[in-house]
């Protein structure tokens, strides 16, 4: 007679944030809102991602990416920020590292803005308000 322990648990899966090798994906969060940074951080950490750094504007975002390179697996990038907006920061990062994986996170959802970001090298675009499921799905799809 089979008992529950004989069956492999169907629900068991590894957290989204852990690579096959067991290490965590490392993330850089760029957003001028403390609240959004906290929100994204909580969502990703809960799935095993490691938030390696945060930045509050585009300039700091590019700097931190360069500093932490090549240890950043994913960048989440806000668009409306002071000093340098997210799309410009994206362009700088992609210029620095053509393989950079940047996901835009913004409250603005204008078609042409999305297109512009994707053409500039963003791998995906998440429109706020954020929900856990949406964020994880998009991030996972980018990390492939």
């Amino acid at each position, binding site marked *: 007679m089979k008992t529950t322990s004989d069956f492999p648990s169907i629900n068991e899966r590894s957290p989204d944030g852990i690579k096959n090798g067991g290490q965590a994906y490392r993330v850089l969060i760029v957003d001028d*809102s*403390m*609240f959004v940074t*906290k929100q994204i951080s909580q969502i990703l950490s809960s799935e095993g991602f490691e938030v390696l750094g945060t930045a509050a504007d585009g300039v700091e975002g590019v700097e931190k990416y360069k500093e932490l390179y090549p240890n950043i697996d994913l960048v989440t990038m806000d668009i*409306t920020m*002071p000093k340098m907006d997210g799309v410009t920061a994206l362009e700088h990062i992609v210029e620095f590292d053509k393989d950079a994986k940047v996901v835009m996170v913004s*409250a603005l959802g*204008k078609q042409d803005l999305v297109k512009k970001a994707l053409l500039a090298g963003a791998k995906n675009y998440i429109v706020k308000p954020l929900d856990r499921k949406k964020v994880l799905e998009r991030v996972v799809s980018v990390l492939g």
Partner: protein
Amino acid sequence: MRVEYINPFVESAYSIMKEVLNTEVKRGDLYLKKSSQPVMGVAAIVGLAGDVEGRVLFDMDEKTAIEIASAMNNEVLTEIDDLAKATITELANMITAQAVTKLHDLGFKFDLTPPAIITGQNMRVTDMNVEALIVPFEVPMGKVEINVAIRERM
């Protein structure tokens, strides 16, 4: 205010608040006012640019702000600290951005500027000499007034 601008703000405020606060949201009658007016205690302001100039002001009292920030963070906040401010600011940002996105689809090219937040008793916001549209909302945390003032670039 140009009539086409009205619905996007009203709808965005309603749908974002409903989604983000996960509660009943009731909307009062819209009305017009001279834009300079006292603020209830906490005001988040998002600037508008592009085809027009203007701003959207989100007005509420301190207690309501704290309760809304608590709900959005899923924790109990007790004062208007940096996190609470960032949270209210983000609410204002999301509502304005969604409205701007809708307006864009209607052919009106607006841009947003990063939001600011001001707190304090008996404050008055005296800005552009433009008539403002007031959209009053009521949520379990209290009253939230959305105050939109837009001037066409001639």
